[in-house]
């Protein structure tokens, strides 16, 4: 039979994000994938060149709605290295706590999406319910469910109170139990095994050659993890392990992510229990000296790299962002070949693609079912209110 082109998108088949696939198919079998992300370009790299180090952070956090802390941490880490600033241990630990909580919420979200893609909606509901415990912790610590706004050059912006630490610690045992349950489910639930095993296979050599990163690579037995290979934050002093798997399919990627959830709980618990005393920030100079750095970070989806060049002013000359999803597309195109058309959603979802979405704040009034938009002044009032409440606590 002649090859047929099946266009999918501009909303991609797994998550509600903009990407356009042209799948060349022979019957139900995929021959080739052609990819086009050109649906919306937000120009963040260009906009970042025009803002000083204080104003650029909220912008960079909004590169991604899920790994927002990753983008701000990798950036401040790079700038601090150029400025030769040593940040206080307490700030390093709190950054690590937020980073690992972010990984947990991202992986739980992913697990739900993967379950949803194969029609197992019970698991989807369960994981998203359990994810709320992580979200609540993040909200208590930072004031926000996403876009935590914790980082600044020289340290962090909010300290953790003992009550926040205790509340976070109290949530961990239940989460740990739920994640153990998911680890069991992945190995013995028929629905998951049929749809995950042997699907979207990527061998170790292919993962290396095609530059897969993060859980996608580790599921194929490539043990690259920036947290260990190019250590930053508190990962050198906290005991933890790199999780790998050898099966190289969607099943392996699920097992790696569940293993990482368990490791993240260990890291968060260790950091909360051993939180060093002391200041949370040092005074950073306004300007950075001339320099360039490739700052690397293990985001939930894999290696995130910011190439930063400074020119002696309070703005960056260039920040070049390479997100883990961009690195993973090449390997997705490879592992789709010879697979079934119906498996596209789950294979694509298995790299946990994140195409950075934007959204506006809409307020829904449940009484009369009207919707509206919050003005900037109202938002400011709300945040002042919140800050004064926190001070009183």
């Amino acid at each position: 039979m002649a090859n047929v082109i099946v266009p999918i998108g501009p909303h991609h088949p797994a998550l509600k994000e903009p990407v356009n696939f042209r799948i060349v198919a022979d019957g139900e079998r995929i021959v080739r994938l052609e990819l086009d992300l050109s649906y919306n370009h937000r120009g963040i790299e260009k906009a970042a060149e025009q803002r000083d180090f204080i104003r650029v952070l909220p912008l960079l956090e909004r590169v991604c709605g899920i790994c927002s802390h990753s983008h701000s941490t990798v950036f401040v880490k790079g700038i601090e290295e150029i400025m030769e600033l040593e940040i206080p241990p307490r700030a390093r630990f709190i950054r690590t706590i937020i980073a690992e909580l972010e990984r947990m919420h991202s992986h739980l979200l992913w697990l739900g999406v993967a379950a949803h893609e194969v029609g197992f909606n019970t698991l989807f509901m369960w994981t998203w319910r359990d994810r709320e415990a992580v979200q609540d912790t993040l909200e208590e610590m930072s004031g926000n469910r996403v876009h935590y706004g914790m980082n600044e050059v020289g340290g962090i912006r909010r300290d953790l109170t003992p009550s926040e630490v205790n509340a976070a610690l109290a949530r961990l045992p239940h989460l740990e139990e739920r994640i153990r349950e998911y680890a069991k489910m992945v190995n013995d639930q028929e629905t998951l095994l049929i749809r995950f095993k042997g699907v979207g296979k990527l061998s170790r050599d292919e993962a290396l050659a095609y530059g897969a990163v993060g859980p996608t690579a580790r599921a194929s037995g490539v043990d690259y993890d920036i947290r260990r290979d190019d250590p930053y934050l508190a990962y050198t002093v906290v005991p933890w392990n790199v999780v790998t798997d050898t099966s190289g399919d969607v099943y392996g990627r699920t097992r790696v992510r569940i293993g990482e959830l368990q490791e993240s709980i260990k890291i968060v618990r260790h950091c909360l229990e051993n939180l060093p005393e002391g200041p949370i920030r040092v005074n950073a100079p306004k300007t950075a000296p001339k320099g360039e750095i490739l700052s690397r970070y293990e985001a939930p989806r894999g290696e995130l790299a910011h190439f930063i060049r400074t020119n002696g002013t309070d703005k960056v000359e260039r920040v070049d962002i390479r997100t883990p999803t961009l690195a993973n597309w090449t390997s997705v195109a490879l592992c789709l070949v010879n697979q079934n058309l119906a498996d596209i959603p789950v294979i694509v979802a298995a790299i946990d693609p994140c195409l950075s979405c934007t959204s506006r704040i809409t307020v829904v009034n449940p009484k009369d079912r009207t919707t509206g938009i919050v003005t900037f002044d109202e938002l400011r009032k709300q945040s002042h209110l919140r800050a004064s409440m926190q001070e009183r606590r």
Partner: protein
Amino acid sequence: MKPLLTLDFVAETMKEWGTAEQVRHNRIRITATPETVRTAIINARELLECDRLITISAVDNGKTLELVYHLTGPHRSVISIAIELPRDKPEVPTMSDILPPAGIYERQIHDLLGIVFPGHPDLKRIMLNEDWPLEEYPLRKDWKKDPGTFYGGIPGERI
């Protein structure tokens, strides 16, 4: 994990294709030229075990366009090979045949900075929207929005 590469070893191995310097404890930067970069990367892959391309960073420094190829391997050292390209004819051979991940990064750089990679199998648009005008590269320092040009979206609305 293997031990980190030393500057002496890298400088000696790569001296034909560029000069090496240690920028940070596990970062070595090699300054090459557009003519030598392809051989440099092939040799970094074979002699320095750099089997992994982290990314290709592109910078417009106002005078020239710079490309930096960041490679790593089982030794976990990052070898950055940097080149400069003239603005009027920014061309460098593609690396996508020797390092497959380079393909998607080169497409992105071509889209945003207008660098041409001869030999690339499919140098199509990837980042910018489909109605973005040709020959306009928004990440170049001298790029300015032209009020008379249509940049996509709904005609008549501001972008």
